[in-house]
């Protein structure tokens, strides 16, 4: 596995394909589980991962490097996930269902979900959050990213992110404490 610096050196040397391979090798697992945290099933995560790397390949030349590589990758991933969730919301709506219910079913029916009952309820509580709160909660709570990095990933101001995180955190605590 290569460091971000080594990956960027490969790109600087014009070894774009090698740089892509190194990114795929270093980041796939993190990105896959990040996508799953948004409540999406395995097959969707696999599709989104492919879309992410297609975008990475097409924009690797224009990556300026003024933000970290992981921030840039997370920004692409975040955009892809939110776009996918928007489509899923519309599909659920047309099917006369709420997206939240569909995502909850994904967790209940997922044979690969190995969490405790409390973790299951946490994931379902995350499913109730609006997209902006959901993204900041996932990046801050699970990945413990600094607000400045989340701001670069989401394109939202630090102040707004802090407010969203506060709302998300409080709401999730309330849901969980009512159930346990």
């Amino acid at each position, binding site marked *: 596995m290569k460091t971000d610096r080594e990956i960027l050196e490969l790109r600087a040397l014009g070894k774009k394909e090698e740089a892509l391979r190194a990114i795929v090798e270093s980041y*796939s697992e993190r990105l896959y589980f990040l996508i799953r945290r948004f409540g999406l099933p395995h097959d969707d995560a696999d599709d989104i991962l492919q879309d992410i790397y297609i975008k990475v390949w097409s924009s690797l030349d224009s990556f300026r490097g003024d933000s970290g590589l992981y921030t840039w990758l997370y920004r692409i991933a975040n955009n892809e996930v939110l776009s996918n969730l928007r489509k899923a919301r519309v599909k659920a709506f047309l099917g006369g269902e709420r997206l939240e219910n569909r995502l909850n079913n994904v967790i209940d029916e997922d044979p690969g979900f*190995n969490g405790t009952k409390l973790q299951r309820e946490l994931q379902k509580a995350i499913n109730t959050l609006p997209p902006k709160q959901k993204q900041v909660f996932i990046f801050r709570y699970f990945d413990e990213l600094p607000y400045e990095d989340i701001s670069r990933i989401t394109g939202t101001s630090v102040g707004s992110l802090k407010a969203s995180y506060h709302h998300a955190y409080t709401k*999730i605590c309330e849901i969980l404490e009512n159930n346990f």
Partner: protein
Amino acid sequence: MRKENNILDRPEMKANPFTAPEGYFEDLGERMVAAALPEEPKAAPARRLAPYFAYAASLVFLAVIGTFLLRTFTPGYDRTDEALAYNDAVEYLIFTGTSLEEISSTME
């Protein structure tokens, strides 16, 4: 915002509860790279067949010219279809997109 003994402070809460299907990550790298890289450019069928079109076009062209000469220098020959045959050849060349360079190269 935070209460003491907050439920979200429990260590288990941040652990990853998701797993991927067995072996998923083993071939993931190659699959993802293959999906991301653009396909090798394949010549379009019309482009691949262009040389054959050029040969066919030049044969038609020669046949038309030959017929035209034969008809011109054969006394009493009926010339009614002459213009039609020529126009057909021209239309054929335009339809196939055969360039003048391609025609001339096949006639050399």
